[in-house]
């Protein structure tokens, strides 16, 4: 029981990191990242590939952070001028491309078999039963650290500039390159956090394959941000917990519905998660947080008829 709780909390920590990253990219800089799963995979695979070949975990983690940040910078640099929905599609396409690479470049990634036996960091210091709680403690510490860092960023001139940009694309377009660089920086910082999460993921599970980094990761991150509300970083932590409760809680479904075959429990879970996402979107006050969306089109004139 305790072990299960520890593992759930570890998932929460990972989800929290992803949510914090998405908040910087989307909430603060207004760039929709629909490819989080792919970037997450980049971080995980970087860490895994390096540590399986003997690199120490710290270097591997730093490498994961750097590589993911660089990939994020690259993608955002290329798509900086795209409108929202096209940006979402581009980042999604990037994630898909990463997934294809993960599946195909077997020499590097092990293909669909993935990478196994990733060495756990510092296991020689903390053995056996104490390892997972210790790992969890490290994760929490990292979440806390990232949280503080991002809070600083949000309150600094950097953050204010970002929010000003987010509100007004026209202003952003006319202010020129210096200011657009801010967005790329924000996206890359988010990418760095995703990379960190990916490395932790690899070390925790010790086995990764392409299926772990599919679209649902992205959806969970969005759900955490939406559930958490108002774009505040503290809300995100709440959101991450909510999502993980939903995701893990449904794992117990088959205990309540014993007539289900094992192969049916997993799809049923995902159906419930899908429904959960939809309900979250419908019933969040103000839809998807006015904090995130300030497009003029969202304002419906007060006629008898709605626009949609």
């Amino acid at each position, binding site marked *: 029981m305790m072990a299960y709780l520890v593992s759930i909390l570890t998932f929460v920590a990972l989800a929290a990191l992803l949510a914090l990253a998405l908040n910087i990219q989307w909430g603060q800089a207004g760039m*929709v990242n*629909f490819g989080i799963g792919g970037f997450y995979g980049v971080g995980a695979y970087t860490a895994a590939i390096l540590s399986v070949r003997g690199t120490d975990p710290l270097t591997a983690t730093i490498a994961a952070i750097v590589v993911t940040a660089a990939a994020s910078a690259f993608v955002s640099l*290329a*798509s900086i001028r*795209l409108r*929202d*929905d*096209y940006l*979402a*599609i*581009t980042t*999604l*396409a990037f994630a*898909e*491309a990463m997934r*294809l690479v993960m*599946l*195909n470049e077997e020499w590097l990634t092990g293909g669909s078999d993935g990478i196994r036996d990733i060495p756990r960091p510092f296991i020689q210091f903390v053995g056996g039963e104490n390892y997972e709680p210790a790992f969890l403690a490290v994760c929490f510490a990292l979440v806390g650290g990232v949280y503080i860092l991002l809070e600083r960023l949000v309150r600094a001139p950097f953050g204010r500039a970002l929010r000003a940009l987010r509100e007004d694309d026209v202003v952003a377009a006319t202010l020129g390159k210096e200011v657009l660089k801010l967005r790329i920086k924000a996206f890359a910082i988010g990418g760095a956090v995703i990379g960190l999460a990916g490395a932790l993921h690899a070390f925790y599970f010790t086995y990764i394959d392409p299926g772990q980094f599919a*679209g*649902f990761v992205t*959806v969970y991150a*969005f759900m955490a941000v*939406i559930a958490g509300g108002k774009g505040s970083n503290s809300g995100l932590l709440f959101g991450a917990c909510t999502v993980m409760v939903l995701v893990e809680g449904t794992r117990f479904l088959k205990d309540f519905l014993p007539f289900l075959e094992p*192969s*049916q429990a*997993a*799809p*049923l879970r*995902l*159906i419930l*998660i*899908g*429904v*959960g*996402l*939809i309900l979250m*979107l*419908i019933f969040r006050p103000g*839809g*998807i947080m006015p904090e*995130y*969306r300030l*497009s003029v*089109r*969202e304002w*419906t004139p007060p006629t008898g*008829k*709605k*626009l*949609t």
Partner: protein
Amino acid sequence: MAQALLNGMVSGMLIALAAIALSLTYGVLNFPNFAIGAMITTGAYLAYFLNAQLGLALAVAAPLAAIGLALISVVVAHAVYRPLRTDDPIALLLASAGVTFVLENAVRFIYGAEVRGFDQPVARPLVWQGLRLNHEQLVDAAVAVAAMIAVAVILKLTRLGRAMRAISDSPALAQVRGIDKGRTIDWTWALAGALAALSGVLIGLDGTVEPLIGTNYLITVFAAAILGGIGNPLGAMAGGLVIGIVEEFSALVLPTTYRQGASFVVLVLVLFVRPQGLAGVARFRR
């Protein structure tokens, strides 16, 4: 080479049908419908149910599946998208991601993950001047062409089509000119659902029926729709054909598992170089 061109054109038509469906809702509702993949899958399975389980000939099962998915699409629009009360594309995108979860897993729940196929009599492929065209491809092409003609007729010649194009052009003016947005949107979803179902049936006919067939086409369909000019259903037809041919040719050069990669490259190129798509030059922005 010519064989690749032929194969590409046929597979391009399947893509085109789904791309038209995507373009329709993108144009009328400004909605990037992420669930198009799931709709394709659901359509295929509906037909499978009617064909392999109820014993109906595919020629009957397919139109019924189209009607079925048309109804499902309208229901989903009313149950999920309308209550959102927003025309923010990102909110709609996320909602359609939720719908994808539900539809795809409903299919998995009922049918599991095994690969299935339609109950079709086996026929010999046609060979003509060194080019092979198997029976399924012929059927695919014929149905796809018929569907595309039907869509073009609806859009250009009927009142409903004008209503769709008008809303796509300017929703506010459409309201002033008396167009019933609610009903037109319902019909748009119905049409998109029917096209997606046909696409799914034809894809299943050309290959196999399994829960992932739709998702595999997701990027490809988006690429085709954007290439043709988003919101331009007729352009999506051309986009689909081009993408189909590009993918087929890329298979000659790249390993087949990277097939989707070709669509990805096209998508990225179009978005960065010419976001309004090939046919987009004639479109005036809202």
